[in-house]
């Protein structure tokens, strides 16, 4: 083995070690490592008809998802093979042509996925989870494709611009640039949501108390009107520094949930902020961005590297494949943080009964399957399952109330 190979191997080991240490630090959680989740028999918490409805809804949604993934892979594989032909439709230089090829790839994907998206919409409408009409959905989807094009072009312009200057080393400066953009996006997103302040005085008073307990005082609690589009209840913690806030969908405060249950929701979202989960998201993104960019650079070398427009279709395929491969890992990270937020909510509210009530109500309102199969859990679930969340509430009760 040559000295060069040894140096390379040493560098690789060092980088892997740095990656592992960083991942270890990001993985730290307030959930006690000794916590044992009791087994939850879902039929004790949900009626047979509720379980059947959730299972039936979930089955079709999962099939549509699986087919969509296959379509995505087929489209991008075909595009990677034949997509360069579209270069003749461009009079722009290499970067401009690359942007066009990127957009055409996503346009083809949009066309191919449209029937399945419409099928998924039909299924949601059938279960009264959305009120969106087909025409407005397709038109909205089309507009969203435009927004996607903007981000895609920005990303490709950065990558191709760097690749034309730095050759195959483009990924080294590109990864931090993308991390910076992700940070900027996390900061700006709350301002683009179209929200209004929460006006319920009781909930607001409760929220202020929870903020004090979780040491995230002066966090705005805002409401996002989505009732015209969906009936699904949801909430999220978003933003960084001055832009951070808790967003409640107005479908959550429409009377279907009790104040105690809403208190758990707000405590959960404040828990995300208290434990810096948005920053951790950025951190994880950074950990994936470097190897991801490197692998794309490797994959596109035989097409002349990312400085050449011919490499763009292949880069799209590589991106999708890497995304799919990373999905179980990303879901695991997300579930880990959501579990910590659940734990923070229990520690703050000391109300496992309300937490269980909230999770039980999720099944009929969202048609989430409480205990999905293992592969679904690994590939699709970015939150702990309802059964796991109930189990955590029970575990908390056992640990702190002794009941």
């Amino acid at each position, binding site marked *: 083995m040559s000295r060069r190979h040894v140096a390379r191997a040493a560098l690789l080991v060092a980088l892997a070690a740095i990656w592992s240490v960083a991942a270890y630090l990001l993985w730290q959680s307030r959930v006690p490592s000794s916590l044992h989740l009791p087994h939850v028999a879902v039929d004790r918490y949900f009626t047979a008809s509720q379980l059947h409805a959730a299972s039936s809804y979930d089955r079709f949604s999962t099939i549509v998802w699986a087919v969509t993934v296959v379509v995505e892979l087929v489209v991008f594989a075909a595009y990677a093979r034949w997509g360069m032909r579209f270069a003749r*439709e461009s*009079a*722009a230089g290499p970067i*401009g042509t690359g942007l*066009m090829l990127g957009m055409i790839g996503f*346009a083809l994907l949009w066309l191919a996925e449209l029937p399945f998206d419409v099928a998924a919409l039909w299924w949601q409408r059938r279960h009264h989870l959305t009120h969106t009409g087909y025409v407005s959905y397709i038109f909205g989807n089309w507009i969203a494709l435009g927004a996607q094009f*903007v981000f895609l*072009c920005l990303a490709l312009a950065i990558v191709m611009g760097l690749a034309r200057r730095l050759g195959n080393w483009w990924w080294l400066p590109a990864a931090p640039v993308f991390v910076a953009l992700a940070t900027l996006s996390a900061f700006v997103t709350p301002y683009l949501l179209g929200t209004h302040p929460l006006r319920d005085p009781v909930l607001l008073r409760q929220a202020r108390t929870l903020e004090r307990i979780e040491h995230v005082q002066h966090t705005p609690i805002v409401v996002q009107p989505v009732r015209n589009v969906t009936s699904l209840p949801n909430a999220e913690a978003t933003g960084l520094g001055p832009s951070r806030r808790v967003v409640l969908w107005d479908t959550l405060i429409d009377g279907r949930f009790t104040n105690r249950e809403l208190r758990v929701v707000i405590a959960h979202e404040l828990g995300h902020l208290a434990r810096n989960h948005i920053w951790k998201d950025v951190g994880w993104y950074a950990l994936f961005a470097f190897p991801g960019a490197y692998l794309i650079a490797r994959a596109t070398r035989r097409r002349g590297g990312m400085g050449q427009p011919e490499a763009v279709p292949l880069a799209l395929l590589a991106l999708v494949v890497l995304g799919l491969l990373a999905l179980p890992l990303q879901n695991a990270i997300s579930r880990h943080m959501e579990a910590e937020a659940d734990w923070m909510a229990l520690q703050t509210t000391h109300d496992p009964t309300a937490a269980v009530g909230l999770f039980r109500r999720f099944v009929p309102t969202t048609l989430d399957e409480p205990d999905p199969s293992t592969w679904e859990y690994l590939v699709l679930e970015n939150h702990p399952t309802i059964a796991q969340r109930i189990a955590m509430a029970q575990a908390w009760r056992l640990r702190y109330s002794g009941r």
Partner: protein
Amino acid sequence: MQAHPVQLVVEDDLRRNRLTVFFRILLAIPHLIWVFLWTIATFFVAIVTWVMTLIAGHPPAALHRFMCSYIRYVTHLEAYLHLVGNPYPGFVGEEGEYPIDLRLPEPGPQSRVRTLFRIFLVLPALVISGVLLGGGSYSASSKGSSGSARYSSGGLAAAIAVLGWFASLVRGKMPKGLRDAGAYSLGYTAQTLAYLLFVTDRYPYADPTAMLDGVEPPPEHVVHLVRDPEDLRLSRLTVFFRLLLAIPHIIWLWLWAIAVFFTVIVQWFITLFGGTPAAGLHRFLSKFVRQALHVYAYITLAANLFPGFSGETGVYPIDLVLPEPGRQNRWKTGFRLVLVIPASIVSSALSSALFAAAVLTWFVALARGSAPAGLRNLSAYALRYGAQVNAYILLLTDAYPHASPLEGVPEPQLALEITPDAPEPVAG
């Protein structure tokens, strides 16, 4: 391609009587009443003609003559109203009576299928005709004691009538560019009417050059297009997503326009005091005007290729020739913002035509994979005029935009010199 059976004949000498121009709309009142009555009669005659053409495969000669007279009369009247013609028109639509006239075909066989669906098939042509001819619309609404009223007008010919009215009053002459543009609008409308009223089953053809065949072309403007008129191919996939694909260009052009705004202010002072624009700024502004043309051509399907981002010359199928920086009239520079207003009005009217042409081309191109030549050439006309307006307002030239739909012809560079040694030119 075979010439369209409905031919526009332009024998107008551009002179206008100031008095009749001033009172034009009032003088036309008897005609407006007459055309209203004639239109009602035409409506019923058209239904009969439709049925008989479906049965016999060609329109009856008498009804055909009636329709021809109506179309010719409407064209005369529109020409008079829009100041495209000067003399007061007759009331019967007789051929050869008016300087803006039509050559209409004899009754001939027509496709029964096209006759059956004529009312639907004519819709795209009516859209183009609507944006070319335009007109006024009045709407009023009231809520309790408060009310509101709105008057709007649009269309190329309508804009030309307003501008031509002022120009004719001042100069006693209609500007040739405006007259040609008005004639083109009337010609297309006449072809549409002829199609709708079963005079011919040939679809209206929007190509300005074919429409104004026989009209003397203007001298070549310093800002003009370079393109291959035969290149009509359009990629179906990129056509389908054209607007979305153009988003990066629109953002880029918008950012560029911010820089252009400040640059042109500096350039204005330089040109006003120095008499000549600064070469560096001229290059920067030229690239912007060229880039805007490339992007608009791409969005409106006048070109197929995805444009670059730098406004380079010679890389795009529809390109722009722009002048080098030269001396400019200081008065024209000083009052450029005011002077550009009439051209902006025409440009705005042409933008509507460009938009309509783009929408219709979108459908055709998805089906055929190519653009209709007529619409493509109409788009090129609108793009050319828009580029001339941009070049004028951005101080690239002090040559006023020329509204004629005809592409200009280069003026001879050198006069023929006969030297004692040179052989005498031989006739024949």
